[in-house]
């Protein structure tokens, strides 16, 4: 794609409180996002360091629509490079994960080391002094396109852009602290699942950042008092606006009258579980925080619901389609009881999750509703017009923060 003939969607004003629906369905906008956001000065979650324990381990991840290989080199360091041969562009790794000394392309047998450097070219000198590569061919000019790579608390991020600041300063101190709070020790992968979302990637990220919907769309939050807007909690937003944390603290005494006044669908006091083990939690971090949800722009989510911990990677798959890769976690030192607890609480999240099921569909509701009327805009006025941290969650500040960061990168 050439930037030349791209016309991005126009914004009605500089305000963050009006978001044009065209952003969710315009093809030029989507193409520009690949260049300016995913291939731009951002850090994109790739995998867990724990998924590549030994030198030679590799896996296939993605940044935007690009396929990316992450590999642990013999010396032990991690490398990331595009999953595309430097010769004619074939995919190099055809499996999601594996172990290898080096990476050989099936098409013409070019091989690369685990740092993405070209180490072998079939028939480079030809056969019987005929054919082969000309003198001016230099292997060093045909290494795989590399990404910068950085690790934080066992999370591995990559960036295509040398202009991106160091990962930890990209995250900022508050977000970094909130990641540290959860990822305190070596993790263990309990499971994986991928959810295909029928909507533009931004609709999902907005949804995760949207502390306003949580207790209204999701009944479990309120009924079981895992999280309500009347509970203590807060929103933390970094200076760029792109990252956020929302959390709440257990608070049995919370005044429910606010809900009664609202008479919300989601407030059915009579509702009880027959087997409540699915919500029987222990306060493993010792701070009474029952729910913490955290995002790193543009596509990473770290989630703690009670003892259910997961990371999510968001990958755009077209203007109206996204892929959400879930990795369900425990800690290496979990005993059988703790693992069983996490597995049962995992019923709360994921594509069939009691409290996240709706999030898989609601983005599609918007995607379908904007058809034919893309010129209109949505509203983001809850909690004001800025994108700053707040002590309450009846706000759309984190969503405005997303657009603040988005516009700065898109130059709009």
């Amino acid at each position, binding site marked *: 794609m050439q930037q030349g003939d791209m016309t991005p969607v126009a914004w009605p004003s500089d305000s963050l409180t009006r978001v044009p629906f065209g952003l969710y369905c315009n093809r030029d906008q989507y193409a520009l996002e690949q260049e300016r956001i995913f291939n731009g000065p951002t850090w994109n979650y790739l995998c867990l360091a724990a998924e590549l324990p030994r030198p030679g381990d590799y896996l296939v991840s993605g940044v935007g629509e690009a396929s990316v290989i992450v590999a642990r080199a013999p010396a032990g360091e991690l490398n990331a490079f595009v999953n595309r041969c430097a010769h004619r562009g074939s995919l190099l790794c055809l499996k*999601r994960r594996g172990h290898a000394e080096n990476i050989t392309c099936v098409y013409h047998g070019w091989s690369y080391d685990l740092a993405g450097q070209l180490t072998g070219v079939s028939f480079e000198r030809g056969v019987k002094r005929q054919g082969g590569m000309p003198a001016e061919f230099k292997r060093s000019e045909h290494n795989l396109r590399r990404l910068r790579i950085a690790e934080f608390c066992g999370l591995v991020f990559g960036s295509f852009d040398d202009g991106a600041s160091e990962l930890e300063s990209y995250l900022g101190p508050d977000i970094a602290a909130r990641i540290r709070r959860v990822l305190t020790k070596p993790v263990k*992968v*309990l*499971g*994986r*699942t*991928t*959810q*295909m*979302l*029928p909507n533009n990637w931004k609709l999902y990220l907005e949804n995760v950042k949207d502390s306003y919907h949580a207790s209204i*769309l999701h*009944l*479990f939050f309120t*009924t079981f008092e895992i999280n309500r807007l009347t509970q203590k909690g807060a929103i933390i937003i970094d200076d760029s606006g792109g990252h956020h944390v929302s959390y709440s603290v257990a608070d049995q005494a919370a005044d429910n009258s606010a809900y009664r006044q609202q008479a919300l669908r989601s407030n*059915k006091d009579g*509702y009880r*579980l*027959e*087997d409540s*083990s*699915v919500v029987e939690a222990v306060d493993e971090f010792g701070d009474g925080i029952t729910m913490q949800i955290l995002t790193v722009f543009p596509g990473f989510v770290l989630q703690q619901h009670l003892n259910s911990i997961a990371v999510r990677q968001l990958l755009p798959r077209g203007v109206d389609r996204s*892929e959400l890769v879930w990795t*369900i976690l425990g800690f290496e030192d979990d005993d059988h009881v703790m*693992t069983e607890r996490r*597995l*049962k609480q*995992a*019923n709360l999240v*994921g*594509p*069939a999750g*009691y409290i996240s*099921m*709706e999030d*898989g*569909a609601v983005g*599609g509701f918007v995607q379908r509703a904007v058809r034919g009327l893309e010129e209109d805009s949505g509203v983001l006025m809850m909690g004001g017009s800025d994108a700053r941290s707040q002590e309450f969650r009846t706000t759309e500040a984190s969503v405005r923060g997303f657009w603040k960061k988005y516009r700065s990168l898109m130059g709009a």
Partner: protein
Amino acid sequence: MDARNPGVPVDQAVRLAVADLLARYVDVIDEGRLEAWPELFAEKCRYLITSAESFEEGLPHGVIYADSRGMLRDRVSALREANIYEPQRYRHLVGPIWVERETETTVRVRSNFLVIRIMHTGDTMLFATGVYRDLVDISSAPYRFIERIVVTDSHKIDTLLAIPL
């Protein structure tokens, strides 16, 4: 008998009753009578939806995991009372069925399945395929599932998985 090794023979009557249990399972889901679904399981049971990839890798997590009939009932009441999802239905096709004797009172059963999901909009998709891996209590009629592991061939789930597979 099981296709992999002769094992202990299973007589025709048992096969028919097992086939009937599998058919009842399809019926309660496809006809939307979910309240009858947990009753096809033993009080102490195990129900897990996982993918072939996770199953082969030995990962314990499932997108749905229950170890009691109560948890299955809770899943149904959540779908009825709590969760928001567009009206939709499933259409199952099941078979072949492989039955193998496990103990005096139980049989191991495997069966191929295909689930089509039809939205209220009329949009239809091939939603899931895979294998049911069951342990069935045949000690008394009607037979019940002691364990049903739903192993989907794909690790991808479209939009959401509301109704159990």
